[in-house]
């Protein structure tokens, strides 16, 4: 009675239906007719998940406290030390208010270009290789698809699907995610790609120009998408921790430690209104390909490739670290080293580009001492 003709017929029909759904949904892409099905799922299961999360979250918090106890001790320790350091820095900062304001503007977080955000809580997480989460804010709260999601620390991802009271967020660490990024200080642009939590380093950064020097410790902010969707400019993404060079490759890949703690997401903010004024325009490098002078970098003995760079060419190539590259980069570099890193080659590049070199120099030198400076992307008015 178990494996009858009827069972096989039903199996065949259902498999055909699922294959048809895969085809239709895949071919349809963003405008797939099955999107309605997903909205239905969001409308039905969103509130249920919300309710279930309300019951389960306190239990989870209790468990987290027990499991994360050793971790918490370490964190308290680290935060106390950091607090000490910040207090000293604060004293130093008060001397130099104008510079602090410049940094504010650079990160696009204050005054002129503030983000308007809707706060939301993470209520469930995607399964398997998918790095997605559900948050408890939906179209009723003004959330739409392709909005940027941030935390107080930095970029989280973008909204891919919106229901009445919940929405789905694709995390920046997902392998399907790529975000335009900009190196703070030099202003060089590139692509930040997710590689998944399991790969050890959740984010990589690929510069479009392979001759540019990246240093561990440099920070990356979002470059901003066209029309501010899906990514608004100026959101902190992460810190470069090491550089992987692929001999013969056109691009150079940096491993990035994100500011956001992706494994412990709780309260996030959806940027519902982008900054009124793009704070990035003033520091953008010129778009057309310019004759690049081959930079003689001391740590790169391989043939440097000054040709026109193509993004993504090196993404899948196996990467190898150059022998003289420090394997574990120091987390915080002393400020002197940082500003000195923008050596003669850097200055020459600045001089040939159209923007004012002075702005860059100032920013580079102010950046390092205030690594932990005010970069919370809430506008003061919120």
């Amino acid at each position: 009675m178990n494996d009858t003709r009827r069972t096989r017929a039903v199996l065949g029909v259902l498999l055909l239906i699922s294959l048809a759904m895969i085809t239709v949904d895949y071919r349809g892409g963003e405008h797939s007719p099955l999107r309605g099905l997903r909205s239905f799922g969001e409308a039905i299961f969103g509130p249920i998940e919300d309710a279930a999360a309300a019951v389960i979250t306190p239990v989870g918090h209790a468990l987290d406290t027990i499991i994360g106890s050793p971790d918490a001790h370490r964190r308290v320790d680290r935060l106390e030390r950091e607090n000490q350091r910040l207090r000293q820095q604060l004293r130093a900062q008060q001397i130099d208010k104008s510079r602090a304001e410049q940094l504010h503007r650079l990160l696009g977080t204050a005054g002129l270009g503030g983000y308007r955000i809707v706060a939301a809580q993470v209520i469930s997480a995607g399964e398997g290789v998918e790095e997605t989460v559900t948050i408890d804010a939906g179209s009723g709260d003004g959330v739409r698809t392709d909005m940027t999601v941030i935390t107080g620390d930095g970029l989280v991802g973008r909204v891919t699907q919106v229901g009445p009271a919940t929405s789905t967020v694709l995390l920046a660490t997902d392998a399907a995610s790529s975000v335009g990024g900009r190196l703070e200080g030099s202003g060089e642009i590139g692509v930040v790609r997710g590689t998944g939590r399991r790969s050890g380093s959740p984010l990589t950064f690929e510069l479009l120009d392979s001759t540019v020097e990246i240093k561990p410790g440099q920070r990356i902010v979002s470059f901003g998408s066209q029309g501010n969707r899906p990514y608004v400019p100026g959101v902190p993404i992460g810190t470069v921790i090491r550089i992987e060079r692929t001999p013969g490759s056109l691009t150079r890949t940096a491993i990035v430690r994100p500011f956001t703690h992706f494994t412990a997401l709780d309260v996030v903010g959806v940027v519902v209104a982008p900054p009124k004024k793009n704070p990035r325009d003033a520091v953008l490098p010129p778009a057309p390909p310019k004759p690049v002078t081959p930079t003689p970098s001391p740590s790169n003995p391989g043939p440097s490739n000054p040709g026109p760079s193509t993004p993504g060419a090196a993404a899948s190539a196996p990467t190898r670290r150059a022998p003289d590259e420090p394997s574990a980069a120091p987390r915080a570099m002393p400020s002197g080293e940082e500003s000195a890193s923008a050596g003669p080659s850097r200055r020459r590049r600045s001089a040939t580009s159209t923007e004012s070199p002075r702005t860059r120099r100032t920013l580079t030198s102010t950046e390092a001492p205030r690594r932990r400076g005010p970069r919370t992307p809430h506008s003061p008015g919120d």
Partner: protein
Amino acid sequence: MSRNVLATIVVVAALLLQLTVANRLPLPASVTPNLVLLAVVALALVNGSMTGLVTGFFAGLAADIVPPADHTIGRYAFVYCLIGYVCGLAADDLERSPVLPFVAVAAGALAGSVLYAMVGMMLGDPRTRWPVLSHQLPVQVLYDVIASPFVVWAVLRLTRRAERQHDPGGLDAVPGFYRAR
């Protein structure tokens, strides 16, 4: 009919637990047990391949559309439907072999991950790459096998209770291994 209601309840409960609890567990290697798959395997083992494949299809479809799913609709439906059918074929042997649930769960977890990844590779999904998969597979199978007794036990118990109420002296679907408890 109560069997269908039961299967629906089990699948929805598994899905909710999966999304709100299991996926957020801070387990080593960032892999979590796949409760929906376990529920499908357990229901198929108890009720046969017809229930298995129908349950698998609808459980997979639910997993495809429930937030925060962000993959092509139909992928899990296809995979779970096949697994439900194959595990259902083994339902008759459940009586004889006490380790069968574990073997079925391990095979189901392995086949589920591989099939899902294969469909993903055919569609050009950047998330399902071989290096990630090869790291994930052994851990995934291990976690699923560890979690399987709980799910299989719960399903068997629910079935037994439902059948005692609605069908006294009817089908004896509860295997010897679990009947002792």
